[in-house]
Every structure is written in C-alpha cells, then in structure tokens.
C-alpha cells in the first residue's frame, strides 16, 4: 500500500489517483456486470451443466447396479446348478446302489427258486422212479406168479417124459421170457 501511494505521488502532473478507493462509476458498472454474470451462471448455465452431470452419474450408477444384479443372478444360478448337480450325483449313486442291491436280491432269489425247483424236480423224478419200480415189482410179482404157474402147468402137461423134453421145455420157457422182456423193453 505504501508503494502504491508512492506510485500515486509519482504522478506529478494532472489528477492524482488512489487505486484502493473505488470511483462511483467503477462500483456501479462492477455491480451490474457481476450480478449479470452470477445470475446467468447460477440460474441458467450451471444448473444445465449440473443436470447433465447428474444424468451421467445416474447412468453410471445404474449401469453399475445392473452389472451387480447380473453378477448376483449369475452367482445364484451357479449355486443352484451346483446344488442340482450334487443332488443328481447323489441320486445316481443311490439308484446304482439300489440296483445293485436289487440285482443281488434277484440273483439270490432266483438261485433259491432254482434250487427249490431242482429239488422239486429231483423229488418228482425220485417219486416217479419209485412208483415205476413199485409198479414193476407189482407187475413182476403177478407175472412171475402166472409165468411160474404157466410153466408148471406146461411141465405138468407134457408129462415130463424125458430129460430132453424137459430140457426143451425149460429152454422154450426161457426164450419166451426173453422175448417178453424184449417186447416190454
């Protein structure tokens, strides 16, 4: 300030000026100009720019939240798929286990059934054989009796003349018997 006043004093001719005392016209025009600028900026220009800035911020934030949502959705889907996969695997294992158990059961069941069947068949065969044998014994018994009777009557009928005849009769009987057995077989 001191040096400014020195400059003022250096102005040896004409009017002296004091640069820190404003002239009335200076204040008037400054006020007019500054008020115009402030009104133009604060009322019109800056709000317009601010609106664009806000819109941009909103857009960016919207994009970010959208991306976040998508990411969350993807993570949820992945989790779900993983859960499903685990479940499916468990189910497959369970099914395999069941199948194996069932197969074992079926196998053992059929084995039991087969052995029962075999036993039954064997028993039936045994019974049949036994029955046939019984039948054979019965028929043999009756046939042997009649044969013996027939033979005896034949022997008696031929009056047993000689040994040769006797021999012939026995041979004939045996031949008969043989042919009977052959025919039966």
């Amino acid at each position, binding site marked *: 300030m001191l*040096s400014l006043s020195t400059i003022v004093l250096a102005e040896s*001719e004409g*009017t002296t000026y004091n*640069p*820190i005392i404003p*002239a009335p016209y200076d204040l008037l*025009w400054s006020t007019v100009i500054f008020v115009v600028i402030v009104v133009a900026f604060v009322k019109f*220009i800056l709000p*317009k720019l601010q609106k664009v*800035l806000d819109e941009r911020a909103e857009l960016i934030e919207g994009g970010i939240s959208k991306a976040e949502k998508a990411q969350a959705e993807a993570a949820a889907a992945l989790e779900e798929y993983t859960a499903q996969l685990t479940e499916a695997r468990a189910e497959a294992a369970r099914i395999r286990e069941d199948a194996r158990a069932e197969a074992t059961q079926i196998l053992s069941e059929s084995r039991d059934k087969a052995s029962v069947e075999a036993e039954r068949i064997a028993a039936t065969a045994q019974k049949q054989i036994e029955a046939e044998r019984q039948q054979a014994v019965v028929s043999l018994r009756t046939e042997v009796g009649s044969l013996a009777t027939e033979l005896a009557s034949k022997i008696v009928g031929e009056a047993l003349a000689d040994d040769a005849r006797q021999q012939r009769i026995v041979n004939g009987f045996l031949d008969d018997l043989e042919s009977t057995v052959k025919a039966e077989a």
Partner: protein
Amino acid sequence: MRILALEGALHAAVAQTSDDASSDSSGFFGWLFGSDGFHAPSISEFYPDALAFAGTIFEFNRIELVRVIAAFFMILIFWLVARSAKIVPGRGQAVVEMVLDFVRVQIVEEVMGKERAKRFVPFLTTLFIAIVFFNMTGVIPFLNIAGTSLIGLPIIMALWVYVMYLSVGIKKHGLGGYLKANLFPPGVPKPIYLLLTPIEFLQVFILRPATLALRLAANMIAGHLLLVLCFAATQYFFFEATGALKAAGVVSLAAGFGFTLFEIFVALLQAYVFVMLSSVYLNMALEEEH
C-alpha cells in the same frame, strides 16, 4: 514484494522521462502509438478517458468496456457449452467440466466437506470463472488490462462473499451466537479478551473482505505495470534509443514475454486464492466452535 521491486524501476524510469512526455495522459494508446520518448507506466493507466457519460456515475471507459467484453465472452462460451451439453461430453464440454470439477472438489469440498459445500458450489464456481476471465484480459492483446485491476470489481466480489458469510453465520447461530463465537472465542482466559476481541472484530468485519479485494486488485495492478514497463521499454529501446541501447530491447522484450506467462499464472493463482479464502470464511461462519 513485486510492487516494491517495481518502485525502484519506476523511479528510474520517471527520472528519465521529460516533463513533456509524462504530461501525456492518453494512457494505453499514448504509449502504443506515441513516439516522443519513453513513457513510464503510471497509475493513470487505470483511469483512461471516458468513452461515454463522462463525469457522471454512469461514466463508461475502456476498462468497463474490457469488463463487458470479458463478461460477454464468459457467458457466451459457457452458455454454448451448457446448451449443447451431452451425457457423453465433447472436447469443449470436457474442459468446462474439468474446471467445474476442480473448483468443486479441489477447493470447496476440500475446505467444507461434501455436504456443506453443496449450497455454495454454484456461486463459488461462478466467482472462480469470473475472476479468471477478468484477470486474463490483462494478457489478451488489445484488451491488455485486467478487469479486476480497477478496485471496484474486487470490492463488489469481496462484499458479496462478506455479506454471504455474515448472513449464513447469523442464520445458523443467531446474531448473538455468531458474535459471541467470533468475538469471544471459548477456551481463553477472560483478560485475554481485551486483546483478542478487537483483533477478532477487525478480522471478521474489516480485514477479511478488505484483504480479499486488495490482494486481487494489487496483484493485477502490479502485473499490468510490469507488462507495460517491459513493452514500453522495448518500444523505446528499439525505436527511440540509439546505438548499443537498442540491443537492450531484446532483453526487455524477453522479460515482457516471461512476465506475460507469469501473469497468466498469477491470474489463475489469484482466482484460486480468492475462492479458497471465500470457502474458508464461509466454512468458519458455519463452524460450531470457532
């Protein structure tokens, strides 16, 4: 500092000047076109002849014209950008947004915090841009004088900030509360108030606005005088001086170039300082504890 350095140069220059030459008060055009010896820059540069309404309160001179031109271009440029502002910015819009962002983030929010800054950002942004534009006219060819170098505009700006911080302070704390918080800061032994209260009173009610206005105007005045000195000297050395002195013009021209760059820096710096201090004062007015 700068002004003190300048003083020596001025005295030397004035000593060189003939009485005849210094009585020429046609200012800018005088030293630009006149060729009758060296014209020292003087404070009368800031009081050019009226262009209209001479002698009335409506007196309109070259500096007011420069201010009107600066204001016109300032509003025009920002209006054009704002009108065609898009969500995806073009180059011009990106620059404008960078400026707005700088003021908001680096100055206002830095001082006040995000919440409190909101209501002051529009005005302080306008203030910053206006000061930059009015300062820059000092280095723009054919304008050649800063709109803020005449004290009226800095005073109006400082007064606006002054009224603003007083009113938000009083609105928040009440008149009594605001005065008590500012003039009788708590946590001080009672006798100290004898010393502290007058100082605080000077601070809040006189020094803050006064220093705001003076700092800006003084910087711009000094810058203008420096530039005029450099270019007037160059003019003198090249066209008036004889012999070896002509070579000195190269030095003064280089100095003028350097100071022009420096003035651009000062123009931005002073806008930053003015808005930064305004934010600080507004913030202090709203602070719970002084």
